[in-house]
């Protein structure tokens, strides 16, 4: 918005053109084209990601079921590629959905804490601490999840299995190793906390001061201010923040690969081992040893993951972008 202010706003188009002719030449033009070229390159890279994945996945997409079964390890006979990818998609979505359900309430609490509850001088430092969670490499989350979190939550899982065993999610034998989807979801939830917190915090801070003061003037308590002024204003922002978190959880690889004991079932038993696997972890586990058609099959599953995350991210960003236009009016 600052750049558009330069130059007289109401100028005849003819005059603009003469100005451009006199200054837009030589280095000036070259520099402009380089800058525009980089912008276009960004779009080209995204298109190239989709294109090259498609090219490499194509042999697997067109191969017959027998060929796939012959060359891809663990490929069940008489299964279409779609039926093969199905359990992986299911596992990915289940893990991400559980992580999201765990992380969103906590992240909203943290965002409100930083924007409305914490002492203003401390708020920035506390926000930085939460951002540090995003800086920790995922392989370290994997180590931590298997050696610290797993043993720590095992009693909780056993208790859930005993008391709430009738509920489909907690049914089945509770694995004594804790290498189950429930543990993975907790780690994923910790990993997506920072992004959800960061986006919600920005939205909550944009709440018009007048709305908050009006609520205070009517005698509202702190929580009532939040409930009546801040949350309604930030609703769409929180939704898009949650979707961004979902996108992260869908694509997370190492924590799942290291913690989960994999299986290929449509199963809701998140406390039992050898039930689920996610797309990303499956690729990372098998890709280093794969060759030939197996590589193409793995790239095809990667393409599925790419499409899912792209759709989720585009939805989230579209909501954020639409919000920006409206929030100017407030």
């Amino acid at each position, binding site marked *: 918005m600052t750049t558009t202010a330069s130059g007289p706003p109401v100028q005849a188009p003819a005059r603009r053109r003469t100005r451009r002719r006199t200054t837009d030449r030589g280095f*000036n033009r070259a520099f402009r084209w380089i800058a525009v070229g980089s912008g276009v390159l960004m779009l080209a890279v995204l298109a190239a990601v989709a294109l090259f994945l498609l090219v*490499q996945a194509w042999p697997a997409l067109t191969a017959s079921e027998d060929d796939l079964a012959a060359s891809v390890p663990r490929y069940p006979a008489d299964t279409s590629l779609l039926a093969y990818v199905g359990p992986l998609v299911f596992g990915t979505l289940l893990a991400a959905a559980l992580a999201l359900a765990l992380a969103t309430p906590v992240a909203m609490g943290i965002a409100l804490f930083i924007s409305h509850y*914490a002492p203003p001088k401390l708020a920035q430092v506390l926000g930085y601490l939460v951002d540090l969670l995003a800086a920790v490499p995922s392989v370290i989350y994997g180590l931590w999840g298997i050696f*610290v979190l797993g043993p720590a939550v095992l009693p909780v899982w056993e208790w859930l299995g005993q008391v709430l065993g009738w509920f489909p999610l907690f049914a089945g034998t509770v694995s004594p190793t804790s290498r189950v989807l429930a543990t993975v979801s907790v780690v994923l939830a910790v990993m997506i*906390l920072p992004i959800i*917190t960061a986006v919600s915090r920005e939205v909550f801070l944009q709440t018009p001061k007048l709305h908050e003061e009006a609520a205070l003037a009517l005698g509202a*308590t702190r929580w009532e201010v939040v409930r009546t002024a801040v949350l309604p204003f930030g609703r769409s922002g929180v939704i898009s923040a949650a979707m961004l978190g979902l996108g992260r959880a869908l694509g997370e690889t190492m924590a799942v690969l290291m913690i989960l004991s994999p299986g290929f079932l449509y199963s809701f038993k998140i406390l039992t081992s050898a039930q689920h696997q996610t797309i990303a972890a499956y690729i990372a586990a098998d*890709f280093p040893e794969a060759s030939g058609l197996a590589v193409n099959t793995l790239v095809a599953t990667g393409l599925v993951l790419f499409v899912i995350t792209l759709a989720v991210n585009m939805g*989230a*960003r579209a909501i954020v972008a639409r919000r920006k236009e409206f929030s100017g009016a407030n």
Partner: protein
Amino acid sequence: MTTTTAAASADATELTRALLTAADPRRRRVDRTMRILIWGAFAVAMVPLVSLVWTVLSSGFGRISLDFLTLSMRNIFGGDPSGGIYHAIAGTLVITALATVISVPIGLLTAIYLVEYGRGALARAVTFFVDVMTGIPSIVAGLFAVALFTLILGPGVRIGLIGAVALSVLMIPVVVRSCEEMLKLVPNELREASYALGVPKWLTIVKVVLRTSVAGLTTGILLAVARVIGETAPLLVTVGVTDSINFDPFEGRMMTLPVFAYRQYSQGLATCPGGESATCVPDIAIQNGWGAALVLIVIVLVLNLAGRLVNRWFSPKLR
């Protein structure tokens, strides 16, 4: 008449005051509960951070030694406790540096385009898709790089350059976003003063806009490096693994710190025929993994801290 209204209004005032001071206990209870919950949410988030940092420090510290930092794993088998992570540190630095060299010019120029030139549908599209690209899963970026280089070099090639390209796909959007924010902070008066002196636009951008925001740009780039230096999955599928030192990203497999930590972890316990001794430690692989994790987390934290400090100390004081 006046007395009655006065009395009535006095009554009303009293009533209002009573209502306000003795606010509905349920409302106060809810307020207090929510306050506790919200403080609790923050505390809950700090538990994993503290636990994680403490675990890495306490588990990894015992393995750190000069040998561990300066030796590779070449010809180290089983529970042999000699050997170290020098090859992994070298690989991480080379690949990350190469990714930075690819990402920073493209990212910075895209940010310049968005701030200085961008308007209309193209700029909107670039902004939108840069945001979308920040959400590309890292494993997909790795697959993309493999797919690209399979077409160029044939299948099965594993070199550092492929990993650097994969990391660039993840890094460029982060660089664009942070540089864009920093360039927007440059006051327009500076640009206009430069134009008024007859300086062409490109020179204004190079000498005025970039000069003014150089501290912020450095911060953004350091944070972007910190973001990709810990990536494991894309390197696992693109660069492969090795036990030897390799500084050449255009030839041969390379080892990186996160992949090293993962590989050591997945090796599990070694068998020591004669029991634990100075030459055979059963859980040496796990210890190596924690040691690598500690070095990695120290690098990431130092980059983060350096980024924040550069911005605080060197950014120009704007009114």
